[in-house]
């Protein structure tokens, strides 16, 4: 894998192009000392640099990073790391060798999130097909606002969205890929607001009465951030209590809705979570949907953490293939059960430098006005290529396997009677005394043996949250985690 690539030479000097020189007054070759013709970069140097950096990336950042015999992280304190990296940006440039060395350092001191013992976040593992798609995207650097600039990716995004709408169980639908699940949740709020009060787009929030959002106490914090950003206000996010498994209590939801209405506020959206961030709990979607139908509220299901079951009664769904399916960051979808072009109507600004009405192709292919962004990366491609490579069946198998591994760990955990764990599908939560977890975390990071996240919950204990989602881990890796926590914390 570290052998040199034999590829055709990069294009030579543009001056040697097929077009013959025009007769006429002599051209200026330079202007104020700056050469005007030809690339400033030596083509041979560019080729060599790219080949060498790619070899290194494949060897160090891909191959070694997934090797269980290597460390997950090479911990350095911030001050030490600053010195090691020599971050300062100067007037003069550097040689190829120096730049390659810098790449090597960046790899060395970065956390290997694809390592089998990385359980710190809700993403993990290496998905080579989506990575190839990322590389292609970076090389082509397209932007997804119009068909003319991104023909392939426009069609691809559409194909993936259609398939996902089918999987959710809707007859029709729309959607868009976003810069993260937080943004998908924001879109849901914006569309729900626009559906009920379209005049807000022009006149602002003050054109309507005080709007309120409902969500469980276990929901992702992006709901609160969205409310703040969109001028709704975090106090107008009504937090519905959940039961001891972390599931929203439907009767409490209805109480809160009634209470909000009696205050003169206007409920407009309920956010239900399928797979909460800390406990991995699933809100009872059917019962919540009944309530939403009764009060005519928009039901959004934040399903970023899991797969798409039982969301078909929702008006919108947020889902992140970059989590459980391991597509490269970022890969987040927002789906909406709508065929009235609500996304477009809600967000459009019809900029005439992009969305000219006199184009020579069907304008409905230009998706830019569905988004609040302008330039947008074609993240759907990562998912499309991976899906083509693996097929739906294999993707399903991965999800099933994650669950099977979680269950098998759960089965073994009685060996560790000193832990009183909880389990919710893909999470296993190991509660420890408050002071113990940070010490064990520090030790595991300085040793570089693994990374598992902890957080407080209910103020009583810090929980280690073992997230079982990557199909690349095996039962041995799970056993290792339990053993390692035990051995690192033995003296505590």
């Amino acid at each position, binding site marked *: 894998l570290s052998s040199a690539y034999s590829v055709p030479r990069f294009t030579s000097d543009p001056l040697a192009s097929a077009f013959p020189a025009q007769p006429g007054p002599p051209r200026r070759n330079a202007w104020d000392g700056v050469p005007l013709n030809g690339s400033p970069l030596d083509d041979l140097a560019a080729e060599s640099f790219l080949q060498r950096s790619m070899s290194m990336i494949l060897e160090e950042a891909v191959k070694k990073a997934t090797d269980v015999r290597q460390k997950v992280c090479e911990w350095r304190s911030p001050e030490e790391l600053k010195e090691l990296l020599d971050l300062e940006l100067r007037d003069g440039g550097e040689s190829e060798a120096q730049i390659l060395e810098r790449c090597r350092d960046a790899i060395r001191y970065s956390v290997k999130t694809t390592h089998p013992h990385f359980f710190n976040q809700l993403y993990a593992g290496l998905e080579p097909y989506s990575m190839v798609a990322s590389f292609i995207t970076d090389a082509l650097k397209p932007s997804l606002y119009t068909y003319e600039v991104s023909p392939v990716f426009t069609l691809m995004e559409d194909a993936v969205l259609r398939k996902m709408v089918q999987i959710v169980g809707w007859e029709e639908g729309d959607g868009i890929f976003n*810069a993260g699940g937080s*943004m998908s949740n924001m879109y849901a709020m914006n569309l729900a607001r626009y559906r009920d009060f379209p005049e807000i787009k022009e006149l602002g929030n003050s054109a309507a009465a005080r709007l309120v959002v409902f969500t469980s106490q276990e929901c992702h914090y992006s709901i609160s951030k969205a409310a703040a950003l969109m001028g709704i206000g975090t106090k107008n996010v009504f937090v519905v209590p959940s039961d001891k498994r972390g599931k929203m209590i439907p009767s409490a939801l209805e109480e809160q809705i009634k209470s909000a209405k009696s205050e003169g506020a206007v409920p407009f959206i309920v956010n239900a979570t399928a797979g909460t961030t800390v406990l991995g709990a699933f809100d009872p979607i059917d019962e919540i949907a009944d309530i939403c139908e009764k009060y005519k509220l928009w039901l959004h299901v934040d399903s970023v953490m899991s797969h798409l079951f039982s969301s078909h009664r929702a008006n919108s769904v947020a889902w992140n293939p970059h989590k459980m399916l391991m597509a490269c960051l970022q890969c987040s979808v927002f789906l909406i059960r709508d065929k009235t072009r609500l996304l477009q109507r809600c967000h459009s600004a019809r900029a005439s430098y992009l969305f000219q009405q006199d184009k020579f192709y069907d304008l409905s292919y230009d998706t830019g006005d569905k988004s609040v962004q302008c330039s947008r990366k074609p993240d759907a491609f990562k998912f499309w290529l991976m899906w083509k490579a693996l097929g739906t069946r294999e993707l399903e198998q991965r999800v099933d396997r994650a669950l099977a591994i979680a269950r098998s760990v759960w089965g073994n955990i009685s060996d560790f009677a000193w832990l009183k764990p909880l389990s919710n599908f893909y999470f296993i939560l190991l509660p420890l005394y408050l002071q113990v977890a940070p010490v064990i975390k520090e030790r595991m990071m300085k040793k570089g043996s693994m990374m598992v996240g902890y957080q407080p919950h209910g103020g009583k204990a810090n929980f280690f949250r073992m997230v079982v989602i990557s199909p690349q881990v095996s039962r041995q890796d799970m056993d290792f985690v339990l053993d390692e926590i035990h051995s690192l914390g033995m003296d505590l």
Partner: protein
Amino acid sequence: MEPTVGDLSDPLINHTEGQLFLHEAFKIIVEEVLCKGTDVKEKVCEWKEPEELALLLDLELREKGEQKEKLLQRVRDVAKYSVKTSHPRFFNQQFAGVDYHSLAGRFLSEALNTNLFTYEVAPVFVLMEAEVLRGLRELVGWTEGDGLFCPGGSTSNMYALNLARYRLYPEVKSQGLWSLPRLTIFTSPESHYSVKKGAAFMGFGMDNVIFVKGAVPHFVSCTSGTTVQGAFDPLDRIADVCDKHKLWLHVDAAWGGSVLFSKKHRHLMKGVNRANSVAWNPHKMLVAGLQCSVLLLKDTTNLLKKCHGANASYLFQQDKFYDVNLDIGDKSVQCSRKVDCLKLWLMWKAVGSTGLEQRVDKAFFHTRYLVEQMKKRDGFQLLREVAPVIKERMMKQGTMMVGYQPLGDRVNFFRITILSPLISQKDLDFFLDEIERLGNDV
């Protein structure tokens, strides 16, 4: 051999196979996208009608997977039918060209697959982002400040709007806009449409993006390098007005910010140091590659964090074993946030500020050359109906890509964006010749 769910002792993914695929796909990328994609002898685009292209690509997602050879062919097809935005004759948008150092930085960012909310998960990049932001702020003229990388200039502009609003009325974070007077936003008609989109999204309302009597002005967004005409608003004079009325001054320098690297041209942004916030997209004039967008702030009171923070305890535990101020996630409205600083940092290290300055200067020289040439040619006036026809022809022939749009009540005109360090005079001459050739009979 198909692995079964029951076989839990082995990893499900075959790493050797995956790495081999990466290796072979990379060869195709180099050949098709980087070599051919920058070659003037090749087309800028291989135009196909949407229906035809959908068939060619065989988009359907099926139950079963596919073999490696088939997938490599798919990689080839994607490259073939995609627009070559690094081609010397691609002038359609405000990004173009290719920088190989930033490209390596982009590949590396993807391979490491992490995001920037905490020091523990992304130690290198948290520190790197801080240093890049510091370097950019220095060019603006600030010795202190704050900022972060955003998923695009539109988001940067939204952040500025949010911070200005929060600074004036911090209670808006919890109470929303209901109890506030109507807030207005000032910007020029030439500004980017993201100001309006942001206003709608954030509850201000698009109608409040112009001066309205009886409302409370709170924000001025001026532009350094407008989207269509590339104009630079007079920052010093606008700053005078903002100082007098105590308004937040935001400079949308998504396009023009890069002139700050150039000693010759930075005068265009004179007064930028008086702004409260600056949006700047190195993926435009500096060729850093999408996405690379920054928001810079003069603020030193941790306003970003106060405005956006939600203190999620599963990420930002206060009992960590390192300085938790390094966990910058709460500055953002995002949760996961991609590493976009590496591409810029690596490129900057490779060519130095001087190299980036030369890049900007060269773009200006090329523009001046083109204007000179255009003046020498007669009949360079275009009528409304002509531009779409010429555009259609250039795309179907794949010889170049230049955008057109109407401006006000004036006719369609072509906007040639000159920024790529890879183009030469020949390419600019070609542009003029080709427009003439394509429009000859119209």
